[in-house]
């Protein structure tokens, strides 16, 4: 069984090895798409990422809560049942910038990712798949963000 102690002991050493082997992502390799992350809607984000107009489909699944107890942490998962997925993305319609995360799918991972996003208010969220044939597919759902606590 993997323990936390192992994690601690290894992490420092591993960082050194990977850095010397040039395996860390570096600014030079940076593929961070600023235009996509600054887009204010799904269409602009997709344009910046070189994607076509999206089609809604049941083959992309988006998992998330109907109600978020707090918008600071909203669990979302995206997956695609079709072969030939190049990229999966998570987007939040009413956030200041729509695009939240992009996952590049390789043959070695399943097109199925989960993370947690921030939401400023109740909104539609999207899971978007870019396919190797150029098609762009998406699924959506509404997540209600509630106010909680004493609010003081």
């Amino acid at each position, binding site marked *: 069984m993997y323990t936390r102690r*192992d994690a601690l002991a290894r*992490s420092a050493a591993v960082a050194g090895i*990977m850095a010397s082997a040039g*395996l860390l992502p570096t600014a030079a390799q940076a593929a961070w798409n600023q235009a996509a992350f600054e887009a204010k809607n799904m269409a602009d984000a997709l344009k910046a990422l070189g994607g076509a107009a999206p089609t809604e489909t049941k083959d992309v699944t988006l998992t998330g809560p109907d109600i978020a107890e707090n918008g*600071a942490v909203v669990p979302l998962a995206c997956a695609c049942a079709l072969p030939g997925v190049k990229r999966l993305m998570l987007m939040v319609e009413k956030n200041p910038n729509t*695009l939240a995360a992009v996952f590049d799918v390789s043959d*070695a991972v*399943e097109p199925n990712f989960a*993370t947690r996003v*921030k939401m400023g208010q109740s909104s539609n969220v999207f899971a978007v798949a870019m396919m190797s044939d150029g098609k762009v597919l998406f699924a959506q759902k509404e997540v209600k963000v509630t106010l909680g606590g004493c609010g003081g």
Partner: protein
Amino acid sequence: MADPMRIRAQAAGDKATVRVLMSHEMETGQRKDSAGKPIPAWFIQQVTAQHNGKTVLEAQWGPAVAKNPFLQFIVKGAKAGDKIAISWLDNRGDKRTDEATVT
């Protein structure tokens, strides 16, 4: 230096589910401090995962990913004893790599 990540990689059948927690502020750049001054954006932009040294996942994140980020993905063909390494790079150029063994 950034605090260590917490990585769990558990094999089931011919694949392994990897769950990662990263220690990071993920500051959006949209908030103001108590004096009304904008707090500059500070967030992880790129995440890379490797299975036994081979890159299997590259991700780009924006500031909308929640503080102390969580990531879950499934690596095909990974078995107990394999190594999973995760690296992140933030918009200030800070980076961190941690490794775990698949159980």
